[in-house]
């Protein structure tokens, strides 16, 4: 059984005038059907307004589908009884680090989730220890969040989710407001949690280089799920991506240009190293002929 399953999910946003009459409805999600297995690292790519954040909010029942169903670990998000269990299983980290940290001290914020779940005092403390260790933030345990860098704040937010012992970590553009060093920190943390602790990660992003590290990419455009596949499969379809306003990673772009000039590159490279390897192989082949 897959951990996350969406069946024909539709979501309508209604805009109302002052008297409450609906003046316009926007379909933010159109018949989204997908399955995500436990342990996967998924990137959801899309332009602004493609519906990727709306989809993410459906996965922990912050939004409910207008039609269709979302199943998390077999539980329907529309069922009120499952609500808190679903939110505990699918933790979410948002874009702006300042607007999601509730505590005035790091440890207090990490403890917020377990406190809400009614976890006994002693266990909360051990969960906080563990969660801070997982994101490597033990040294800032007693700091005030306002003294932390953007990357550190996002790691604290991730720890806050981890303390609830989730199976799924949903990251909604967690790096959009960070500097390059902060981005690298947060991404490394997400990959580490996926690899080491087997947490299913959903990374919502519009950054191609971030998406390149995922196991699978879902591409969204104007509320539709338009592509799904491994990064290599997705980035090989550069024309389709360009058509919906997305680009491909710089390395892949370079490879395309080289191909156009008659240089054989067999495997679409996603990282600098892969491109170097491909070019070395090409140079060898040239030399041996």
């Amino acid at each position, binding site marked *: 059984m897959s951990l996350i399953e969406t069946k024909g999910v539709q979501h309508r946003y209604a805009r109302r005038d002052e008297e409450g009459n609906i003046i316009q409805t926007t379909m933010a999600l159109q018949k989204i059907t997908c399955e995500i297995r436990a342990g996967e690292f998924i990137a959801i790519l899309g332009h602004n307004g493609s519906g990727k954040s709306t989809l993410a909010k459906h996965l922990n029942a912050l939004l409910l589908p207008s039609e269709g169903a979302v199943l998390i670990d077999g539980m329907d998000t529309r069922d009120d009884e499952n609500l808190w269990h679903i*939110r505990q299983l699918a933790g979410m980290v948002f874009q702006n680090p*300042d*607007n999601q940290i509730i*505590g005035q001290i790091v440890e*207090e914020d990490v403890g*917020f989730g377990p406190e809400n779940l009614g976890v006994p*005092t002693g266990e909360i403390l051990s969960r906080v220890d563990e969660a801070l260790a997982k994101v490597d933030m033990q040294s800032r345990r007693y700091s005030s969040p306002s003294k932390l860098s953007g990357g550190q704040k996002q790691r604290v937010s991730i720890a806050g989710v981890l303390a609830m012992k989730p199976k799924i970590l949903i990251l909604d553009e967690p790096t959009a407001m960070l500097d390059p060093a902060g981005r690298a920190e947060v991404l490394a943390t997400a990959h580490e949690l996926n690899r080491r602790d087997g947490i299913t990660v959903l990374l919502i992003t519009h950054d191609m280089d971030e998406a390149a590290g995922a196991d699978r990419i879902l591409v969204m455009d104007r509320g539709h799920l338009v592509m799904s596949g491994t990064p290599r499969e997705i980035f090989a379809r550069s024309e389709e991506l360009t058509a919906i306003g997305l680009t491909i990673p710089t390395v892949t772009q370079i490879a395309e240009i080289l191909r156009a000039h008659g240089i054989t590159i067999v495997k679409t490279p996603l990282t600098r190293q892969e491109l170097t390897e491909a070019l070395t192989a090409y140079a060898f082949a040239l030399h041996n002929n």
Partner: protein
Amino acid sequence: MASIKDITLGQYYPTESVIHRLDPRVKLVVTLGYILSLFLITTVPGYLLAALFLILWTGLSRVPLRFMLRGMKAVFLLLVLTIVFNLFLTPGEVLFRFWKLSVTREGLRTASLMATRLVFLIVGSSVMTFTTTPNHLTDGMESLMHPLKRLHFPVHEIAMMMSIALRFIPILMEETDKIMKAQMARGADFESGGIIRRAKNLVPLLVPLFISAFRRANDLAIAMEARCYRGGAGRTKMKPLIYQTRDLVAYGLLLLYLVLSVVIGRDLLHLQNLLTGVLAWRI
């Protein structure tokens, strides 16, 4: 120019002391008890007792005296007014005349006692804010007000609101700074003109600030819901308040002090009158 970020919240003075380690509930109760005692006390020995308690209370807190006195600056005017009015306007036996004003024996007595009472009150209650972090204080208040929950008073919600407000003060300050600079770069003027003009000039600062505050509030509410926040019911505490021996000792000392301040601090004859009055009323 010092950055707006450097402004400290409240006036917590971080150091190690017995008073710092006391349970915030104890500090709240002691402060209230002390204020109460200052209003009970009317005799000079009573004031000496209150002074003794204050020296003990501030001395144990290990907060430097100059920090304590800093708080006095804000109420200096009030203090002067209290002294002046009491000194000149109390009727009684005239000691000496000065132009059209006369100083009476009673006036001198009331003025000095009122001034002492005010100083004691401010210094005594500032020890609490010097030695307790704002979130500890909120915790203490939540716990002390817990019985009010039976009356459907939203104790948890108010405590949560207070701690969120405290958390967002530095963020909103920083934002104000940013918006101010952005508006100044576009020619806004926050510094010249009369008071009305200046108030009007604040509009381009306040409107974006409010919009941003509402957006933040919305984001925070979603983030809290995503982390399973559903009000105070069924919530546990990571660091619950638990009374230690020192807290019980402090309560004991407070009780002793209150009894003594009633015995020494009040005119015994007055007390007798009061008691007979109460008894007569009961009968």
